[in-house]
């Protein structure tokens, strides 16, 4: 899951980045509204965490502008402004959630997961695909009830495929989901992760669509089926 964090306070930003990273989320950090715009144009994000007091312009203004452009990216406002007016203004400007500083990292992470889940139209956290289940918040994958040990890149890749259920995703899109903007990515890294996922979950879990990219394979109801 790829998070865009828009926060101008270095100390807070580094804490959020480290915390969300430890929770298995991929975070890109920007400190200004203009940088946020550039980032949104350059890569795909699943959710945005927005601080309101940005140095170049007000976060609410950025948010309104994004909504006017038709960008439906879920946005969570993270701010120290606690009056009811501020909250109402934030939600009316197009925010999906509002979290007050100081906050709990686990709560932030849970809310981000909820926002993404709602965006995908799911009401429970665990994503099931046949006998394969994945819980984005605990980052636990199970195959026919048995836990499967996945690396964090593999988790992110599996989450991206499950989240975009059945849709074909290009290699670039998948890389956006798995890596942060600044991460060094080797050219065949994605293939390596796909290979590992297939080895751990069965060859049928990811289908290669030649020339276009990858998508989630058909749901299997036992391990045999997936292993075909």
């Amino acid at each position, binding site marked *: 899951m790829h998070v865009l964090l828009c926060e101008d306070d270095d100390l807070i930003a580094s*804490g*959020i980045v480290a915390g969300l990273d430890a929770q298995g989320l991929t975070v890109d950090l920007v400190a200004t509204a203009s940088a946020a715009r550039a980032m949104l144009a350059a890569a795909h994000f699943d959710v945005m965490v927005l601080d309101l*007091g940005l140095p170049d312009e007000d976060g609410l203004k950025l948010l309104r502008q994004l909504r006017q452009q038709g960008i439906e990216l879920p946005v969570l406002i993270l701010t120290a402004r606690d009056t009811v007016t501020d909250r109402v203004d934030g939600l009316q400007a197009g925010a999906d959630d509002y979290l007050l500083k100081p906050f709990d990292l686990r709560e932030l992470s849970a809310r981000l997961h909820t926002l993404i889940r709602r965006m995908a139209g799911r009401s429970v956290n665990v994503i099931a695909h046949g006998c394969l289940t994945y819980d984005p918040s605990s980052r636990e994958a199970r195959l026919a009830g048995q836990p499967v040990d996945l690396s964090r890149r593999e988790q992110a890749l599996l989450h991206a495929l499950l989240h975009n259920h059945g849709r074909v995703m290009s290699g670039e899109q998948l890389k956006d989901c798995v890596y942060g903007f600044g991460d060094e990515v080797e050219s065949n890294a994605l293939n390596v992760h796909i290979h590992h996922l297939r080895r751990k979950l069965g060859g049928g879990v990811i289908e290669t669509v030649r020339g276009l990219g990858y998508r989630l394979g058909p749901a299997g109801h036992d391990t045999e089926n997936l292993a075909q």
Partner: protein
Amino acid sequence: MMSLRLRLSLTLGGAFILIWILAAAWMLLDLRMQMMDSLDQRLAASARMVAGLMDQMEMPEQQGSGINAERLAVSSPMACEVSSLRGEILARSHNTPQSPLTADESGYRDQVINGESWRSFTLTHGEVRITTADRQQERDVLGRSVLLAASVPVLVALLGSLAVLWFVIGQGLAPLNRMRDALKRRNADSLEPLDVPGLPNELQPLLKTQNQLFQRIAQTLERERRLTGDAAHELRSPLTAIKTHLQVAQMTEGASRDKALAHAEEGADRMHRTLEQLLLLARVEGSLSFDDGVLCDAEKVARLAIHDAAHGNEQCIELIITPQVSTAPVEMPAVLAIAALRNLLDNALRHTAANTRVQLTLQTVAGQAHFLVRDHGAGIPEPDLDKLTQRFWRTGTSPGAGLGLAIVQAIVLRCACSLRFDSQSDGLRVELQMPLQGSSSPGTA
């Protein structure tokens, strides 16, 4: 408290009644005197008429008692008596009392006969004395009926005036009532301007003042609200950093844990600084005393401020002391003088370009110490100069809390100093003036 309407009505009504009563008493007294005068004249006229009639009769039987008083045609309430100069009664009207009315002298006379008061007039005419008389009681009855006839209209007019007074005062005070109702209808914490249509000119300034007051209160409340919001923000931000990094430290191990803990400590330091500044600001703006009896001359203030601001790296501030600087102590608590200068230096250090030094020039002129702090930063745009000393105002990504210059301004206001900013493209120059003790004799000793 009595209502304004009742009070006005009572005062004006009382004055009305008093004036009307005095006027009425005056009028009635006058009327009574006039009436008595005319009645007296009637007595005299009647007596002369009787004398005239007697002349015409040329009575042969002058000695007899045959004069028929009824023929003398004297009107009935009036008594008439004709007597000889010797006191012999020649004739009398039938309603004349039996005792003789006749007086010895001519003219008006009051007398009591048989318990009744009479007013008489005696005319000596040739051989006879003619006396006419009125009963005082009849005069009184007449007087009372005149009094009654005159006082009823007066009373009606008075009551009418009082009613009109009550009504007109009510009408006149209606705008005040409208204003009172408009105030009553307001919410206790509403600060919207009052709108009362059709107020007279006298009340317009009141409404205007009231609305200006509401506006000022609203602005003050808004400023306080924003200030609290800003203070909350400034305290919550480092708190958030501390909490977040502590949680990261719990989740991670090894190097990233140490890093998170170091960051948490940095956040705690920042919070500490902000709190200290907020407290200092509150104390400077409050009425607490800072005077600890320590005397400190301008040079010492400069050196201590540099020590505090430089955090051990005193190379970053260049102190230039002009020759013959006064050693008189500053005319303010030393701790405030140092805090003000230190905040200016902090600010300059924060904004000066990398690898440049901040200059602090000290000179004393005419009982004032001039501290000139100059940095080599980008300066401040002209329109922002006024905002410099606002609480929580800071430029873009400045790491401060935006309180330093607000503290300086508060100290300047409290201790009769002066502060001047001069921004140029090669840096900001700030001049802080402090009064020196014994400023009448700027010494060089």
